């Protein structure tokens, strides 16, 4: 982009360093095929997806994936179809059995759990929201929402109350006695959302929840997730193939291709410092001024800027800072707390904004 772009601190986020993560994934593999476990650790594991399939008939779903998710974080996994993202989220709760690697949820090892412990985990700690909703057509909305509670053996009145709370929370009040097929797609996914929240899980997983919805409704639902995240503060793992959605929702984004991690980073890192051509390619259409922060466009401070020039925080998004910088005659200071970390002038701002016009 520009020569002045600085590598963000820490560069590529290193995942293993987090203390007390909500979710800790280490060396996770999934190979589909009858002798999958024989392949890991051998030469063959290093083959590309295509070569391995040609030679052994096995298909690599997920290859050596490690990452941590912090408590309360919205962690987005994004990739195109076939990149393995949906497989990954299913490995996390062992809806698909991993071939190798560990998954820990708040220090509890999910891989290696016996069946009853796994059931317990699914019932109380992890909830999922699915692309095609997965609702039970023969049950009313309120009974769909309470299904998880019913499965874990809670009494009828208790689960009705809880379900009704959740119905209200996701904005479905008045629809609780409808059947799912009497609701529109967006409303059905609200039911899915309410069902996931009803169990009061420690972590919520979303598997492309809004892909089946119209664009307008999708935007509403994204706002709904943001609102719910603010209200209930759950840790969320969110799968999507839509970069805009990833940038909008994600605290951090994991980009996958062919079952491997390409990059993990915050939205501005992904757009500002794409790890390779692949990432650069599909971030190229993103309106950069909406994602990049000042830190990505500023120049080093050479002392030429007067101390009375406006001070802008380094993590402010370019678009929000543009008016101030353009109105001010001369460069502005970029600060990290009290420290001046760089300067930014009209040209730096315009470069980002104009670059978009060129597309």
């Amino acid at each position, binding site marked *: 982009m520009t020569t002045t772009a600085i590598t963000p601190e820490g560069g590529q986020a290193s995942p293993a360093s987090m203390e007390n993560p909500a979710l800790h994934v280490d060396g996770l593999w999934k190979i589909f095929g009858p002798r999958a476990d024989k392949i890991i650790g051998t030469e063959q594991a290093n083959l590309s997806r295509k070569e391995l399939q040609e030679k052994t008939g096995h298909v690599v779903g997920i290859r050596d994936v490690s990452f941590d998710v912090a408590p309360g974080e919205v962690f987005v996994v994004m990739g195109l179809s076939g990149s393995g993202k949906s497989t990954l989220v*299913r490995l996390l*709760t062992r*809806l698909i059995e991993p071939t190798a690697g560990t998954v820990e949820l708040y220090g509890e090892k999910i891989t290696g759990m016996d069946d009853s412990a*796994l*059931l*317990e*985990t*699914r*019932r*109380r700690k*992890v*909830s*999922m929201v*699915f*692309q*095609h*909703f*997965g*609702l*039970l*057509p*023969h*049950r009313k909305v*309120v009974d769909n929402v309470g*299904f*998880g509670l*019913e*499965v*874990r053996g809670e009494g009828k009145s208790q689960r*009705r*109350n809880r379900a*009704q709370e959740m119905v*209200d929370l996701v*904005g*479905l*009040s*008045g*629809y*609780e*006695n*409808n*059947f799912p*097929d*009497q*609701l*529109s*797609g*967006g*409303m059905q996914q609200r039911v*899915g959302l309410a*069902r996931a929240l009803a*169990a009061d899980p420690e972590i919520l997983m979303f598997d492309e929840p809004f892909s089946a919805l*119209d664009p*307008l*409704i999708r935007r*509403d639902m994204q*706002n*709904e997730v943001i609102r719910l995240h603010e209200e209930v503060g759950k840790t969320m793992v969110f799968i999507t193939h839509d970069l805009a959605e990833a940038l909008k929702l994600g605290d951090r984004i994991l980009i996958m291709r062919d079952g491997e991690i390409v990059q993990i980073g915050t939205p501005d890192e992904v757009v500002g410092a794409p790890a390779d051509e692949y990432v650069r390619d599909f971030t190229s259409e993103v309106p950069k001024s909406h994602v990049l922060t000042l830190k990505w466009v500023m120049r080093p401070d050479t002392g030429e800027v007067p101390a009375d020039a406006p001070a802008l925080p380094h993590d402010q998004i370019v678009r929000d800072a543009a008016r101030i910088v353009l109105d001010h005659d001369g460069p502005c200071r970029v600060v990290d707390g009290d420290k001046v970390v760089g300067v930014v002038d009209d040209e730096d701002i315009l470069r980002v904004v104009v670059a978009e016009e060129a597309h």
Partner: protein
Amino acid sequence: MAVDTATAVPPPPPARQQENKEEQPYLERGKKRHTGPLLLGILVVWLVVFALLKNHDTRALGLQDTTDFHEWLNRIRDWVQLHGPDNWFFGGVLGFIGDTFNNIFTFLQKLVSIPAFPRPVPQIGWLGVVAVFAWIAWAVAGLRSTILVVITFLLFGVFGLWQDSIDLLLVTILAVLVCFIIGLPLGIAMARRTTMSNIVTPLLDIAQTMPPFAYLAPVALGFGIGPTTAIVLTVVYALPPLVRITEHGIRSVPETTIEAARSLGLTSSQMLRRVELPMAKRTIVVGVNQSMMAALSMATIAALVNGPGLGKPVNAALQIQNIGAASVAGLLIVLMAIMLDRTTTAASERSGGVASVSGPQVLLMGVVLEKLPRWATEDAGRGVRHPRLTNAGKWTIRGLWLIPVLVAVYLSRQQLNFAQFPGRDVWGFLKPIDGKSVTKYINDFSNWFIDKVDTFTLALKNDVTKVVINPFQNLLAESPWWAMALVILAIAFVLGGWRPTVISAVCLAIIFGTGLWNDSMVTLAMTLLATLLVMVVAVILGVGMGRSRRTDTIIRPFLDAFQTIPPFVYLVPALALFGVGRFTAIMAALAYAAPIATKLVADGIRGVAPTTVEAARSTGSTTWQMITKVQLPMARESLVLATNQGLLYVLSMVVIGGLVGGGSLGYIVVSGFSQDQLFGKGLAAGIAITAMGVMLDRIARYAAARVGR
């Protein structure tokens, strides 16, 4: 609490309405139905009435007793027999049809199965027949079918049932031919004109709901006893599937194709010949397959009205409980069923697309193919240089193979041993495997086996009869008839609403009018019990199959095989294991109806959306919770459909069970054929069976539609 207020007052506008830009489909509350409690209430009232008024007004009728209605039917029969030949309808129309079929059939019989006077043997002997059928099988279906055909035909001869086997085959093929001639144009007309479809479909419905036993008597009255009756019966039974599948096949031709063809300016008949028929060909052949299987099973049953074929030896053996002899004939029926099924299936697979001529072709490939003239071969395509046969080439090869066939036909006209299948006296090596020996083996084995297990099977039979069948039958048959009718109507109303109730009322009135109320209730009891059993088996197997591919691949071939067997044959093993009695009929019904019901349940379970299953799994459902809370409820439409099909299958089999001591309506139908003065009663029993079939079918259908909500 919140739920109560929500139902009591009109729902408040959703809290976050400004965010809901989507239009909601509709806001209709399903009516709350208390099906379970209502049914329980009906049962309680019923039991009370039963306790108080047991054995009053049951309308029981002794076996030899008849009512005025029966006598009236008898008089009609007498009239038809006396004046029929002079009547324009009976003598004219029906007589003409009957004579035509009789003549055709006798001609064919003389050609291949009975002595053609003055010859002591048919025109074409067994060798010729085998060769001709083998050639046909090879030409339409390939080498594997040919081998199957040859083995099956040889066994007809080896088991000493050549004439009966060929007769059965003739009836079946003739009937299917008639079906094809009637059914194909009918199906096409139905596909092209909705009015036509709307008129014919209900008729097909009725024909398919009627248990075959029900229309044996009227058809026999119209056409007299013999081949024509058998053929007409078989046509009535085998026509609906062909018509339905033809209509479906023509209708399934994609709209875009039709449009494209129309834009090219095809006329209506060009459209039919060049577009619709070729594209529907494969489906139509499937229809022929279904029609043929139906025809075979009906042609077997037609033995009861003296229809020619293998049904006769089975029936005769059942009368004297000769398991071995019944098994031998039954085995040949099964083999014939498999042969016809495989051949037509192979033919339909072949008619699908680019079919390479298989079979003996392959052996000749290297030698002949290279030497054939240009017009007979073409490149195999896709850049492959191997030559492949054109249509003309295929027919040339087939023509060449006709030469040895003609030689075989010639030999079979000249040599006695090739004309009449030699018995053990001529060909000594047949001794250990011919019909007599196999009958003996089977009788020995079954005696030995029955000896080992009969304490168990008989105890089972007696216990179940005593603990389950008798009490339930008594409840139905010993309740006052009016109480019983009210109970049935109430159940119909609770399950399906007004319409099935009205239909049931009409059906019950008809049953009452036949004067066979008590026997009908006995049959109903057996039907319901057997259906219950069928559904238990179907749910257990179907859930297993629906959940696991592996289980499915193991069980499905058995179900397929069971479905190919004509119902008549099920009586043989059931009789061997359990002796005569109602229990035996129920077991035969179970074996007959369970496969179709199981398949429907399995398909329903498999049809549950994978996302839903996964979602339920992600909430931590156990396997049991998954089955009971997700899969079975979501498959309930299939369950009801399976029950509906199961009921109809069971009903027809329970009635046929009259032959092995099933008693009631089925037995009355059979005695109607054998005893002159009971003809009218038998006819009335047929009417009662039909009414019961329609009633059960309608109740189940409306219940299904309601469950589908």
